């Protein structure tokens, strides 16, 4: 009866709210499950239930406070190099829409993953390195020149997947305006003579951000 149906949907929405969801999700596309989350889920499912209650407001895999782990896909675009082709291999705006974070959730860890196509970056030439820089940016585009990078690394060769801890970039877990924008630059370092121009935008296979947050419920419980 309509009354029963209304009562059921009321109960369902109150249960969803207690699960931390504003409404019942209706995924438009079945995004593949990131392997890191799948491994974490399987490990928790198979580990024997300990007698004493483990701290369920802590993500043991990363040893940080938290009870929610999300992986956000990058929605940014490649930016024009803006420099003579030789040195700068690629420049990309990394844009993560973090609006799914609920009111009161505190970010306790943010890890950026860059996945490259296999062997996309060979050592550019004898004695040469590849330099990687990450700058804070606004979703509208590249950083003001001369800004200090958030993170700077040199590599003799790029592995297929690189992980960078960004928690320091996010002051005390606050996310400005519900999204995170960075500019990634990879360039051929000084010295040596490049055998061939370094691989460009086709080298980057995927970019994602893994975020651990402490939900309001957990925080209340911890305070208690």
């Amino acid at each position, binding site marked *: 009866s309509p009354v029963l149906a209304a009562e059921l949907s009321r109960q*369902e929405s109150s249960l969803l709210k207690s*699960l*931390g*969801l*504003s*409404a*019942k*999700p*209706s*995924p*438009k*596309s*079945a*995004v593949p*499950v*990131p392997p890191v*989350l*799948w491994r*974490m*889920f399987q490990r*928790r*499912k198979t580990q024997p*239930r300990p007698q004493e*209650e483990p701290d*369920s*407001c802590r993500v043991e895999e990363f040893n940080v406070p938290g*009870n*929610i*782990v*999300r*992986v*956000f*896909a990058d929605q940014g675009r490649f930016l024009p190099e803006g420099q003579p082709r030789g040195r700068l291999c690629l420049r990309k705006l990394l844009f993560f*829409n973090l*609006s*799914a974070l609920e009111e009161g959730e505190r970010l306790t860890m943010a890890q950026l993953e860059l996945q490259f196509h296999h062997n996309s970056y060979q050592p550019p030439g004898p004695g040469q390195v590849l330099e990687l820089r990450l700058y804070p940016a606004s979703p509208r585009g590249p950083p003001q020149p001369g800004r200090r990078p958030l993170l700077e690394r040199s590599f003799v060769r790029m592995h297929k997947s690189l992980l960078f801890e960004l928690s320091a970039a996010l002051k005390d877990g606050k996310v400005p305006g519900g999204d995170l924008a960075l500019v990634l630059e990879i360039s051929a370092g000084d010295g040596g003579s490049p055998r061939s121009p370094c691989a460009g935008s086709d080298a980057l296979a995927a970019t994602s951000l893994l975020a651990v947050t402490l*939900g309001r*419920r957990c925080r209340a*419980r911890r305070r208690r």
Partner: protein
Amino acid sequence: SSAPSPAVSPSPLCKPRRLYISFSDVGWENWIIAPQGYLANYCGGDCPFPLAAELNSTNHAVLQTMVHSLDPRGTPQPCCVPVRLSPISILYYDNSDNVVLRHYEDMVVDECGCR
């Protein structure tokens, strides 16, 4: 779905009873990735006088049982409720199609008691 009624009469005493929750039964299978369901259990059974030690009861429940046995209509028996629960992790799509792994506390009944 709770367990089919077993051939032998189930113990009337307070204890965890089997309850398997299948998310497809509640129409959530399209956004919950895993698990497809889980053993939640529930507490069922009586808390009769004298309260046996294994019924995990409080002093108050013991007294309440005594009063109930003297005046059944005036004071009810204590209730059979969860006294130890454990969490589960759920992998699901959120409203922005992100994949989320979330730890939910107090989702499985491990122990019941008279309170």
